[in-house]
């Protein structure tokens, strides 16, 4: 019996369209109910309670559902495109590579990628090319996760994974990067636990990750290798999960769980690299007094640096792949690039823990 791997492009495209139509139907219904609730000739405490329940619980829940439908429509669209591209290139071997919308939150990359490709990956508008200097520092200071400076690509998931691995075992990174005699770099990544060597030319996307001075770094080379690994375009690493980054970087089996508490997180960090994820927000009110909304980015990934007692309580230090800032905000608020969070702040802002066994 033949076993098919891959997807029916037409079916995927049709399903994606259905998701979009359903989202639009739900949006229309939400607006209609919004209007009816506001205009209904009903006054009094019960009416007020009903209207508040609608605006604070039910409407946001509908909005969240809308967002999920649209996100998944995008996943289906990209899967269909990937399948069509793969089928055209391979004559129908049709391995489904999955896809990922947006930034940070991303999508399932199981089954994705895993091979070297000739030439440069497609810049996808993130160019031009910037030459990589003949030597790139790979000492522990250069591999510090604070040296990662994400730019215009939505690859926080990848950079958080890289930064967490580099923090845990910088020698692992050095052992997996080889400068060749012809000036190219060979990065050893993994597919289903097996090593895959990705060789890249010494030039990287100008809009890709750099060091804090704006120069290409080890992370720039890894990022380019990842773009080749995951499909041959910088767009292929736009959106994803740090668990997929961990698997591709280390070859080990990652885990993905809810946020838990800081004591759990401390234990996880002792066992190996850890990254955190935040999710989308169905609604946004930027003018309130919520303490941490001004610092933590939704749909984003962070590196876990430390969990330790400070000021009499357990706190976590997280690093944003955007890179640390040198200063507090000009209104005296804490920095955006790295922050210490209490357990309460941690639980309010993060919903996913990605971890992988240490490579040490």
């Amino acid at each position, binding site marked *: 019996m033949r076993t098919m791997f891959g997807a029916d492009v037409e079916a995927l495209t049709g399903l994606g369209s259905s998701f979009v139509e359903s989202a639009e139907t739900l949006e229309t219904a939400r607006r209609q109910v919004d209007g009816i609730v506001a205009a209904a000739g009903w006054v009094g405490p019960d009416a007020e309670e009903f209207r508040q329940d609608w605006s604070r619980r039910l409407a946001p829940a509908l909005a969240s*559902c809308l967002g999920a439908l*649209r996100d998944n429509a995008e996943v289906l669209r990209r899967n269909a495109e990937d399948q069509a591209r793969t089928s055209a290139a391979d004559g129908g071997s049709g391995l489904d590579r999955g896809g990922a919308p947006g*930034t940070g939150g991303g999508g399932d990359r199981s089954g994705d990628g895993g091979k070297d490709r000739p030439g440069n990956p497609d810049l996808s508008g993130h160019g031009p090319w910037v030459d990589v200097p003949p030597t790139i520092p790979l000492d522990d200071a250069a591999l510090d996760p604070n040296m990662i400076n*994400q*730019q215009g690509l939505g690859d926080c998931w990848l950079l958080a994974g890289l930064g967490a691995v580099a923090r845990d075992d910088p020698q692992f990174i050095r052992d997996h990067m080889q400068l060749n005699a012809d000036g190219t770099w060979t990065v050893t990544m993994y597919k289903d636990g097996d090593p895959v060597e990705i060789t890249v030319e010494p030039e990287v996307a100008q809009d890709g990750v750099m060091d804090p001075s704006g120069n290409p770094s080890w992370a720039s080379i890894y990022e380019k290798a990842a773009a080749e690994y995951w499909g041959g375009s910088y767009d292929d690493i736009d959106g994803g999960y740090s668990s997929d980054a961990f698997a591709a970087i280390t070859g080990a089996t990652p885990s993905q769980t809810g946020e838990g508490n800081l004591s759990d997180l401390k234990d996880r960090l002792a066992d190996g690299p850890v990254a955190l994820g935040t999710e989308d927000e169905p609604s946004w009110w930027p003018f309130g007094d919520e303490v941490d909304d001004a610092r933590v980015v*939704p749909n984003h990934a962070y590196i876990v640096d430390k969990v330790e007692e400070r000021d009499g309580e357990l706190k976590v230090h997280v690093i944003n792949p955007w890179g640390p800032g040198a200063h507090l905000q000009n209104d005296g608020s804490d920095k955006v690039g790295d922050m210490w969070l209490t357990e309460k702040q941690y639980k309010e802002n993060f919903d996913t823990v990605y971890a992988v066994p240490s490579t040490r």
Partner: protein
Amino acid sequence: MTTVRNARQGSQPTFGVLRVGIMRVGLVDGTPLAQLALRTPSDEAVVVLDEGDAFELDGVGTLHLDEIRASEGTVRGEVTLRFEEIDDAD
């Protein structure tokens, strides 16, 4: 020099020494707004801007938020930024 960039929420386009973290792009009571983390070597500020707003950074230049593309039910939108760098020769 003027540079125009499109950027999605979660990314951090850079204009010379200015890093612009796109924190949130969404609709607030139907109005498209963007929350940006503006960081230079000397300053850091998180601001919320309307489409068409400009933000001046002393000694660096002026950032314009030319367009916001936002949807209901998410803060995962996109923006078009235009940065006018201060010309040192002036």
